[in-house]
C-alpha cells in the first residue's frame, strides 16, 4: 500500500546527528579494516560528469575501473562507471565482459528541468546505447511545491522507460534542506519503483553527508520490514577518503545489517575515493604508505 506522502514522518535532527557521531567512534583495525577497504572499493561507482569528458577521458576511466592497481591481482574491480549518455556506447564497449556496470546519468541531469518526454527519451537512448543502470534526478521544484504525485509519477514513468536497466533515483538532498524532506523524498522514490536511492548529483553543495544517508537508510529499512524487498543506497559526492567510507560502511552494517554490505545494494558515487582506498589497502598489506604517484589517476 502506498503511504500518504502529505503525512511527514518525524525525524529529529539532533538525534540523527548524534547517532552518526557514534558511528564515527567505531574503531576499525587490522583484518576487519582490510576487509572493509576492499569491500568499499568494490562498491565504487567511478564517476566523471563534466562537460569536458572526451572519449579519451572516459576510456581512461574505464581502464582504471578494470585495473585499479594492476601490480596486485588481489585488488578487486570497482562496481561501475558513471558517465553522461553520449559516452555510454564507448564505455560499454571497453568494459564488455568485465562485469563492471555502466551507469548513465539521464533525465536532464543535474537539474531535471527538461520536459518529461525529453527526459524519458534520454533514458531510452542511454539504455539503447548499453547502460544497465540509470541515475535519474527528481523534479525538486515539484517536490518543494508539495506536488508529490507529480514526482511519484515521473519516477514511475522513468522506471518503465528503463526496461531491464536498474534505476537509481537522485534526490539531490542538498536542495531539500530538512531531514523530513529527505525521508519523504526517499519514500516517494522507493514506492514509485526505485532500485536504488541516491543522495546527490555532486553538482550541489552539500552533497552526500552521513546524517542524510542515515535518514535514507531508515526509509530503506522500513520498506524492507514492511515488504521484504531490498532497496539499494548510493551516497554520492563529497566522499573522498577511506576513513569516511569506512564510517559509512559501519553505518550500513549497524542499520541494515550484513545483507546490504554488497555492491548490489550499496554504492559510493565518487572519483577520488578509489585511490585513497587503494593507498590504504596497500598500507594495510605492507605496513607502509606509498606516494600518490604510485597510483594511476582515472
Amino acid at each position, binding site marked *: 500500500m502506498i503511504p500518504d506522502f502529505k503525512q511527514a514522518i518525524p525525524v529529529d535532527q539532533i538525534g540523527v546527528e*548524534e547517532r552518526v557521531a557514534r558511528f564515527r567512534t567505531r574503531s*576499525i*583495525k587490522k*583484518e576487519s579494516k582490510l576487509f*572493509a577497504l576492499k569491500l568499499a572499493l568494490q562498491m565504487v561507482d567511478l564517476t566523471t560528469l563534466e562537460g569536458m569528458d572526451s572519449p579519451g577521458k572516459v576510456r581512461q576511466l574505464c581502464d582504471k575501473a578494470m585495473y585499479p592497481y594492476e601490480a596486485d591481482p588481489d585488488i578487486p574491480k570497482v562496481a561501475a562507471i558513471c558517465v553522461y549518455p553520449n559516452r555510454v556506447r564507448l564505455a560499454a564497449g571497453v568494459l564488455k565482459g568485465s562485469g563492471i556496470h555502466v551507469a548513465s546519468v539521464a533525465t536532464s541531469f543535474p537539474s531535471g528541468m527538461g520536459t518529461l518526454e525529453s527526459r524519458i527519451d534520454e533514458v531510452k537512448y542511454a539504455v539503447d546505447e548499453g547502460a544497465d543502470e540509470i541515475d535519474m534526478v527528481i523534479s525538486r521544484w515539484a517536490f518543494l511545491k508539495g506536488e508529490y504525485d507529480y514526482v511519484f509519477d515521473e519516477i514511475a514513468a522513468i522506471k518503465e522507460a528503463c526496461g531491464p536497466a536498474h534505476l537509481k533515483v537522485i534526490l539531490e538532498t542538498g536542495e531539500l534542506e530538512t531531514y523530513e524532506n529527505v525521508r519523504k523524498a526517499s519514500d516517494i522514490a522507493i514506492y514509485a519503483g526505485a532500485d536504488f536511492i541516491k543522495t546527490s548529483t555532486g553538482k550541489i553543495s552539500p552533497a552526500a553527508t552521513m546524517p542524510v544517508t542515515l535518514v535514507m537508510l531508515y526509509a530503506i529499512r522500513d520498506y524492507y520490514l514492511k515488504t*521484504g524487498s531490498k532497496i539499494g543506497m548510493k551516497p554520492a559526492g563529497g566522499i573522498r577518503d577511506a576513513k569516511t567510507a569506512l564510517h559509512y560502511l559501519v553505518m550500513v552494517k549497524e542499520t541494515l545489517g*550484513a545483507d546490504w*554490505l554488497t555492491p548490489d545494494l550499496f554504492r559510493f558515487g565518487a572519483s577520488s575515493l578509489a585511490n585513497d582506498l587503494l593507498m590504504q589497502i596497500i598500507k594495510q598489506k605492507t605496513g607502509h604508505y606509498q606516494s600518490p604517484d604510485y597510483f594511476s589517476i582515472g
Partner: protein
Amino acid sequence: MSEKELTARQNLHFDELWAYDPAPESPDHVKIEEQYNLFIDGKFQEPAGGRYFETINPANETLLSRVARADRSDLDKAVAAARKAYDGVWSKMPAKERGKYIYRIARLLQERAREFAILESMDTGKPIRESRDVDIPIVIAHFFYYAGWADKLKYAFPGVDPRPLGVAGQIIPWNFPLLMAAWKIAPALATGNTVVIKPASSTPLTLLKLGELIRDAGLPAGVVNIVTGPGEIGSAIANHPGIDKIAFTGSTEIGRTIQEASLRTGKKYTLELGGKAANIVFDDAPVEEAVEGIVNGIFFNQGHVCCAGSRLLVQEGVADELVHKLKMRMETLILGDPLDKNTDIGAINSKGQLDSILGYLTDGVESGLQIYQTKCDLPENGFWCPPTLVENVSQAHRIVQEEVFGPVLTIQTFRTPEEAVSLANNTPYGLSGGVWTDKGSKIFKVGKGIRAGVIWANTFNKFDPTSPFGGYKESGMGREGGIHGLLPYLEISQ
C-alpha cells in the same frame, strides 16, 4: 505498521560477514601504585590500623591495587586537617586566588584526560567510550565552571553576603566515581569550604589519582582530604561533629541513615539518591531517534545510573514497531572488554550488584514475566549482564517499582497523555524523566505533569555543569550543578 506487516517482517543480520577486530586502549602508561594510602593534610599517609583492602577490575576480576582502610582516628585526623586548612588558609584567601587553584585542577585534568579515562574504565567496568567521551569531559567542565564562580558569589546571590560553611563531608557512589567527586569538590572549593571525601570502596582509584593531581597542583595542605574504607566510614563522616555539611550520592536506603545522622548532628545536607525514571514515547515521536534515546537512557553505564530511563512507557499505537526496532538496535550493541574502543556495554560494577540484578530477573521469571535478552556471548571472567527487556509488566510488579540499577528496561503501554503522566508519577522516586513527541505543546504539558527534577525532551541522559540536577520525593534533597549547586555550600545572611 499493521499487525499483518509485523508478522511478515524480516529480520536483519547484524553479526555476519564483518565483525570489528579488537581495538583496545592500552593501559600501559597508566601508573597504578601497588598500594594507596589516605590523602590527609596534603600527603599520603598510612592508616592508623595498618589495614588495606583490595580493589579489582570487575571485567576480569584481577587485582588492581590495595587501598588503605581508614578507621575513626584517621577520619578525625582528616577532619582536623580540613578544619585547620579552612581556618588558616582557604577561608581567608582572596576568592580569585581560590578560583585559580580550581582552574589549575581543571587544566591538569584536561592534560591527563586519557589516563583518568582508562583508569576509570578499569576500576568500574564502564566502556572507555563513555569514560573518555562523557565522564572525564564533564568532570573537567565542572571544575572549569565552578572555578569561574569562586570570585563572583556576590553576583550569584545579589544583596546578600554568602559565606562558606566550613568542612564539607562528601560521600561518593561507585557508578560515576570521579564525576560525582567533581560535582561535589568543585562547588565546595569554589565557595571556600574544605573537603573530607570518601569514594566507594569498590572504585577508589580515580579519586586517589585526583588526590595526587591536587597535591601536584600545589593546593594548600588539608583543603582536600581523601579517606578510603568501608561504609562505616561514610556513616562516621555523617555523624562527625567536626563536619558542617554532608553531600551524599548513593542509595535511598543509606541516604535515609545519612539524613538522620545529619539532622541529629545539626549539619546541612544534600542527598542524590535513587530513581525509577519513565521514558515516555508518544505515537507522533521520531521513532528511530526515540530508540536511540531509550538505549542511551537505560544501557548507558550498564544502567548504573540514578537517572536512568528504566521504565519505558510507550503509546499503544507505536508499541510494536518501537519494541521491534529497539530489539534490532540492541543486537548491534557490543558487550565486552571495557577498554575496547568499540565496546558499548561494559561489566557490571561488582559481584554484589550483579547478584542483585539477577535476583530481580529470577523473580520476574517466577512471576511469569517475559524477559528478552540480546544474543551476545558473555566473557568467562568478570561480572556481566546482557541488555535486557522485560515486557508485559504492570505497575504491580516489583521490577517496575524498585530501582534495579542494571541494564534492565521494563516496558509498559499507555493510551492517553494523562495515563502516561500518572504511570510516570506512580513511584516513590522523582529524579528524571523523558518525553518523546514531535509536538512542542505536548512536551510542555507532559513535562510539567511529571514530578521529577530533570525532564529531557527528545533526548536522554544529557548533563551540563550549568544545569541543576536533583530529585523530588525519595530521589533526594537539594540540587547539584549550576548556581543552585553553590547554595548548599553557603550560609546566606542578609
